[in-house]
């Protein structure tokens, strides 16, 4: 059985391509319904694929070719012939004074909440961070009646120019961009600008912005701040050396779909080269360069700013360690429920630590699941 982890655009494309090759496929996804980040809440047809929703893969054994899952029916061990990891990405959050205040969301974070029912009509919202996602988010907020005060993009105009040039060669993206521009008419787009601090007692009421030497305050009800995407590659480290495991690089929806399809054909033993995929990869590389983070953002957190929000570990306490591992042992940074998913990538950017990815199990696991793993390793369950 071919198993796909993740029912976002990449996993869905992979499953469809496996089916197209007349092979059975199982799709495992931890959300209540398929769709991943971008098709959240939409009706998805997975054809003859078996879908296990609300089920999370917590460990992989590349040698035994099994995955350990936790779902509605409790822990289970499933066998695979090939395993496709289409686990997508999450948002990168950079710590700054006030980023822990209620009302300060991720940019993709507020988008996900709006898609699951958050009302934003009449709310004054500052959108900030980096990447084309900010435009998509601001456009969605505006369509839902929010008063988008401004978009602060950290990339500088020179860097953005290469993005604009690449857009001109990509008709679909250009059309999408024109749509956003239309929806966002009148909303200021400040480049080389970022939120330095969010303030007020108990909830954000205003943010401090900076663009070069210019500093100003913007009142708001919500702030939506995200600095791009980080791949969810925690599972990859379990099976990095297994030839039966195919990790799918993620990107925007078009790239993810093409990468997923390529992985599906590969798993089915019928690889197909795709010129479209090569083009999408090149566009992805241009994006990554255009929106590369400004090193000045490293000075956003102050000594008393929490970097780890689970354990409330300040920047000051992290300075002086030379690895994420050492910082974890001495400060509990990354030891809370998110397991370093938020502070790990932030610490990597702030300190250059490379060892920020997660060791097995990839999520807090119930004891029952660990027992199942032990049994499975001993060959007592299947």
């Amino acid at each position, binding site marked *: 059985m071919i198993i796909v982890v993740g029912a976002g655009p990449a996993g869905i494309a992979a499953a469809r391509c496996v089916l197209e090759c007349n092979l059975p496929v199982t799709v495992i996804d*931890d*959300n*209540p319904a398929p769709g991943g*980040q971008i098709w959240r*809440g939409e009706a998805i047809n997975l054809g003859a694929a078996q879908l296990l929703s609300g089920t999370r893969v917590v460990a992989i054994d590349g040698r035994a070719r099994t995955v350990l899952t936790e779902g509605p029916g409790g822990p289970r061990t499933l066998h695979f012939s090939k395993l496709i990891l289409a686990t997508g990405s*999450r*948002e990168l*959050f950079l710590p700054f004074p006030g980023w*822990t*205040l*209620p*009302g*300060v*969301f*991720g940019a*993709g*974070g*507020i*988008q*996900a*909440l*709006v898609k*699951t*029912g*958050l*009302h934003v009509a009449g709310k004054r919202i500052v959108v900030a961070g980096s990447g084309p996602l900010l435009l998509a988010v601001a456009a969605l907020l505006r369509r839902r009646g929010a008063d988008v005060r401004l978009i602060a993009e950290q990339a500088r105009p020179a860097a953005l120019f290469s993005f604009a040039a690449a857009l001109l060669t990509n008709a679909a993206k250009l059309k999408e961009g024109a749509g956003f521009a239309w929806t966002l008419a009148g909303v200021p787009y400040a480049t080389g600008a970022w939120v330095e601090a969010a303030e007020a007692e*108990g*909830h954000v009421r205003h943010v401090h912005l900076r663009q070069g030497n210019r500093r100003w305050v913007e009142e708001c009800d919500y702030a939506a701040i995200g600095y791009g995407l980080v791949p969810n590659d925690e599972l990859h480290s379990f099976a990095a050396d297994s030839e039966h495991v195919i990790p799918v690089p993620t990107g925007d929806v078009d790239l993810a779909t093409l990468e997923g399809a390529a992985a599906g054909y590969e798993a089915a033993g019928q690889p197909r080269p795709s010129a479209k995929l090569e083009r999408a990869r090149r566009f992805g590389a241009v994006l990554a360069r255009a929106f590369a983070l400004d090193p000045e953002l490293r000075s956003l957190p102050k000594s008393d700013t*929490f970097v780890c*929000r*689970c*354990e*409330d570990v300040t920047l000051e306490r992290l300075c002086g360690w030379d690895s994420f591992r050492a910082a974890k042992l001495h400060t509990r940074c990354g030891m*809370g*429920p*998110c397991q370093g*998913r*938020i502070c790990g990538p932030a610490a990597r950017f702030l300190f250059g630590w490379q060892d920020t990815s997660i060791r097995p199990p990839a999520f807090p696991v119930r004891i029952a699941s660990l027992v199942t793993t032990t049994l499975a390793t001993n060959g007592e369950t299947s």
Partner: protein
Amino acid sequence: MATINLLVNGRVIAAESGSSVAAAMLSSGITTFRTSVSGEPRAPLCGMGICFECRVTIEGQDHARSCQITVQDGMVITT
């Protein structure tokens, strides 16, 4: 969209069926979901099940991530 009721900290709030518990709570004006280890109020950040800032008690289950759970009529929630 059909409206249902949730009981949050003993108070009835209206929610649209199909929405997440986090979105329904925020839309009804609830701003604090949990208190951090140093005593700060916290609320949803990522909206996608990663950060655990939205965790509350739902139907007696502790540490439930409210952004990942769909509302049900009569659901009992405590922050």
